[in-house]
């Protein structure tokens, strides 16, 4: 049933008893054209676009636990395009644009809110880095601009820089967007399911079956499934899953943390980034402040992360926003990322025919619709779109790295 104002009114006449589950709980079939490993935003999105744009609906999404329970549920929902290198500036620009119209595309409100972002600059170096970013991204149509101290103070009246480290200016990023992260997974799942994609939860891939022609199928905790094409869209365990297909990924598993305060009345309407202190925060619709910082100083699968990170992050924020001193923490969490040496994602074919990867997003929520579209295109046509060619696996052999310092994963 389509989600619409008409159907909402209609259902209200029947006490809302007529709504159907958002997606079918499918049983695994014997064979599929494409199997996607990982039921987060990226995996479900790839399945949806395969069915929608490439006419391949014999697709299964295998998720080892519940749908959208990994990093899709553990992120700070910011969609930004302030990257420094042309390849990744172009990529993230396309990624930001790909969010527009997503709600209508999947007929599910992902609560996209173009609330903008403000970067606080505290040194001449910050300023020259910001100018460089603005010039690079302008080539691809992005609209960032430098703002003066006065305008910065008008936007963020809570700034108090009288103690130390005076602010020297800011950057206005009007197009930065936030979205309801869980709704992205649910929306894609519902839309893909309606197009015939099988979404199979609690189904862990235990092995990838290979023959002389490449991928022949997958072994799962719910039996064997035959397929010639596997798309991997996992985070944290990319190394382990790719190893099943005899592929070595140059990634390391590192936790990235975020923290949430108790809800308060609206105090900021932007995402706020403190450039030199590697910290950012935003206020959710519920009123909580969501804060984050850099990746963990050591790799780990533990989904906990070092306690030094919250301490430093909070100290940094309180330095400039002493008004938050009395706020209480509600929760802290860490998602585990696959990080590459150059902090850029890998969307690529591999040395094993029929095995494709979309990994190492380094805070990959922001690229979900675009990466999923490109991944689906790669799986369907077996060749990368020019926009993702620079993000192939062979960049580590050719040395053409995209050493992106603007990602969360930056260490």
């Amino acid at each position, binding site marked *: 049933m389509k989600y619409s104002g008409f159907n909402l009114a209609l259902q209200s006449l029947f006490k809302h008893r007529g709504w159907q589950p958002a997606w079918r709980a499918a049983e695994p079939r014997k064979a599929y054209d494409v199997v996607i490993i990982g039921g987060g935003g990226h995996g479900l999105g790839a399945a949806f676009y395969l069915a929608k744009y490439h006419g391949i609906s014999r697709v299964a999404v295998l998720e080892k636990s519940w749908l959208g329970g990994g990093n899709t549920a553990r992120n700070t929902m910011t969609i930004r395009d302030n990257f420094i290198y042309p390849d990744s500036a172009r990529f993230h620009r396309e990624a930001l644009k790909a969010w527009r119209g997503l709600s209508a595309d999947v007929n599910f409100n992902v609560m996209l809110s173009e609330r903008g972002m403000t970067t606080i600059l505290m040194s001449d170096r910050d300023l020259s880095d910001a100018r460089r970013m603005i010039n690079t991204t302008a080539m691809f149509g992005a609209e960032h601009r430098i703002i003066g101290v006065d305008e910065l103070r008008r936007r963020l009246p809570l700034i108090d820089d009288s103690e130390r480290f005076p602010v020297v200016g800011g950057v206005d990023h009007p197009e930065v967007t936030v979205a309801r992260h869980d709704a992205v997974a649910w929306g894609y799942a519902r839309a893909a399911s309606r197009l015939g994609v099988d979404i199979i939860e609690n189904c862990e891939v235990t092995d990838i079956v290979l023959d002389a022609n490449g991928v022949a199928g997958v072994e799962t905790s719910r039996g064997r499934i035959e397929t010639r094409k596997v798309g991997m869209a996992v985070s944290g365990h990319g190394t*382990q899953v790719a190893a099943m297909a005899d592929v*070595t990924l140059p990634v390391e598993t590192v936790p990235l943390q975020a923290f949430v305060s108790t809800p308060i009345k609206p105090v900021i309407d932007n995402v706020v980034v403190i450039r030199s202190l590697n910290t950012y925060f935003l206020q959710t619709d519920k009123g909580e402040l969501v804060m984050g910082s850099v990746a963990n*100083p050591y*790799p780990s*699968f*533990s989904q906990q992360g070092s306690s030094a990170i919250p301490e430093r992050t909070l100290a940094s924020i309180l330095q400039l926003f002493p008004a938050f001193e009395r706020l209480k923490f509600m929760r802290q969490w860490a998602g585990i990322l696959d990080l590459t040496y150059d902090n850029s994602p890998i969307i690529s074919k591999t040395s094993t025919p029929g095995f494709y990867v979309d990994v190492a997003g380094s805070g990959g929520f922001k690229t979900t619709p675009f990466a999923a579209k490109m991944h689906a295109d790669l799986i369907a046509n077996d060749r990368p779109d020019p926009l993702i060619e620079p993000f192939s696996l062979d960049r580590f052999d050719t040395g053409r790295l995209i050493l992106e310092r603007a990602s969360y994963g930056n260490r």
Partner: protein
Amino acid sequence: MMYIPCPHCGFRNADEFIYGGDSDKRRPENPEEVSDAGWSEYIYSVPNVKGVAKEYWRHKRGCNRWFVIQRDSRTDKMRPLVRKLTND
């Protein structure tokens, strides 16, 4: 809070230490004989073990010495020391 048993200073806050990578990773004996792909694998790929691995750690904000210790990457629990290393 994670504590790391420094062989010289005893249990100290993990914040004082620097992670130095997997100690099982070896630089190729004869770099000139290694293929490009092999060299790229040495530089960019890490074992990324899920479980117990031997790792270099350095007590940077303490005695500043390196050592090799075992850590379980699923829980971050430290296992007994493998060996001390000197700085020189």
